[in-house]
């Protein structure tokens, strides 16, 4: 075989393998979504949204789990977002070149991909253990700790994209620094900031591990933040591993609901930031 032919052969072998890899990767997405829809839709009924999680063998829905997930996600995002935004603002606006920013960026990136179960253990140590029992509020704090790094990252990135000339123009008109940041930089980066929050919501709404030993679970309706609270992921975990067919069915349905919500959020976030990029 000539050198030319062997080089051509190696090339087509390699490119074919790349095609195969791409198809392989995409087929997993299709397979997972396919079986989710197939298994989940069967259990979809109005009862899912109106009834509490049942004991094995009787009818029920996921109402308290859905409500618990919403409550804890909202509180978690409400705590984590301002903190993350402020930190991101410092890094992009005030201390852009300071040593602190470098360190915080590095640590933040590590927290971004740190195992969430470790965050759960941390919250257990600082909140659950002293309080003596599991509670919804400690679940929300655990989620907030996962929101922070996502928001810090996107806030910093988006504020850095705002052109410096806009800030200079505002400063030249005599606007104080705080006004420049709040009225000019924030406004210019608004779509990006919202994207960050959406991504954070998407990230925490499927989190299970940190909730396992902070919020635990609850079979009943609960609006008490200091008591254990049900959440969709934990219910899925518990029901999927149970031997009961109707519980497993509810787990599939819950999984479908979460996935649809998470994918919708991340697609919305992407559309928002893409729209911004095109308009520039």
């Amino acid at each position, binding site marked *: 075989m000539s050198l030319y032919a062997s080089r051509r052969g190696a090339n087509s072998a390699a490119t074919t*393998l*790349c095609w195969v890899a791409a198809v392989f990767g995409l087929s997993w997405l299709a*397979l997972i979504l396919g079986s989710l829809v197939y298994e989940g839709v069967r259990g979809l009924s109005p009862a899912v949204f109106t009834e509490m999680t049942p004991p094995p063998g009787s009818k029920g829905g996921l109402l308290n789990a859905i409500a618990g997930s919403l409550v804890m996600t909202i509180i978690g995002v409400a705590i984590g977002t301002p903190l993350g935004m402020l930190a991101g603002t410092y890094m992009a606006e005030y201390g852009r070149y300071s040593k602190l920013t470098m360190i915080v960026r590095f640590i933040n990136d590590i927290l971004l991909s*740190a195992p969430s179960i470790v965050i759960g*253990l941390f919250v257990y140590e600082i909140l659950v253990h002293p309080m003596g029992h599991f509670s919804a509020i400690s679940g929300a704090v655990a989620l907030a700790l996962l929101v922070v790094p996502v928001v810090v990252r996107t806030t910093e990135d988006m504020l850095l994209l705002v052109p410096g000339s806009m800030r200079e123009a505002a400063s030249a008109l005599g606007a104080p620094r705080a006004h420049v940041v709040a009225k000019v930089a924030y406004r210019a980066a608004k779509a990006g900031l919202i994207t960050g929050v959406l991504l954070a919501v998407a990230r925490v709404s499927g989190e299970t591990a940190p909730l396992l030993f902070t919020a635990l679970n609850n079979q009943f309706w609960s609006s008490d933040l200091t008591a254990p609270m049900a959440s969709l992921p934990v219910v899925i975990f518990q029901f999927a*591993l149970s031997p009961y067919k109707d519980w497993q069915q509810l787990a599939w349905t819950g999984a479908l609901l979460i996935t649809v919500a998470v994918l919708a959020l991340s697609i919305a976030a992407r559309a928002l930031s893409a729209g911004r990029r095109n308009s520039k």
Partner: protein
Amino acid sequence: MTRAAAVIVLVILAGVIVSLVYGSMPAIQAFGFGFLTSQAWNPVTENFGAAAAIYGTLVTSIVAMVIAVPVGLGVATFLTELCPHALRRPIGVAIELLAGIPSIIYGIWGLFVLAPFLQSHVQPALISAFGDIPFFSTLFAGPPYGIGMLTAGFILAIMVLPFIASISRDVFETVPPVLKEAAWGIGATTWEVMRYVVVPYTRVGVIGGMMLGLGRALGETMAVTFVIGNAHKISGSLLAPGTTISATIANEFTEAVGDLYTSALIELGLILFVITFFVLALARYMLMRIEQKSA
């Protein structure tokens, strides 16, 4: 005020470390360094060791990387060099969506769809194919349970694939076009351009991306918990059930009675955090270097 918020990020990390060390003190005092090497895990006699969990964590992560790295690099190459322009964005987004699916979904899918499939189709074939070859015969020994280290590694591979693929794509795009054009100009094939120009230029970043994927795989909890089988023993076979650090914590923490049991689990968490911290720090450092190079 904004500076205070930035400092809080640092405080969170410090708090995590301090509280984990504090929580694991009873176990550290009771078992010392033996904790890392002991395979024992007996809640009744309160004798705990982390070796089986650490072993499982490492093995499942290695299996995941063996599968995900070549596929991830292939996908990244496909996206930067081969894919028709119109499809680039949708396929890139689809791969990234794979990263956004919550891990519990991978878990339930792994338990009900993937594990039975592997049990009835793939594992028997592996056992009979490698049964007579030394080394591989221990790797693929035992009955096909479906759940076990191999299945967990496989699920992890699917989960880290999008990270490796999208980071590799991003660093591939930092290669100045003029370098590739020069190689094409002297008649190099696409494969040769990738192999001798793009990969050497981006090596540090690609390795950083792999380490980031590895960090994810090491700490992943829910998906693994579903399919690992939860057996506290070290087995040479990939088909055997095992456990990982995070799966042990997830499964046993709420059932743990007694301070020593809880403390042992928290020490496991501390070990996991230390391992992932170093892997992730190294990954970020490498990615930072490639960013500076492109700037």
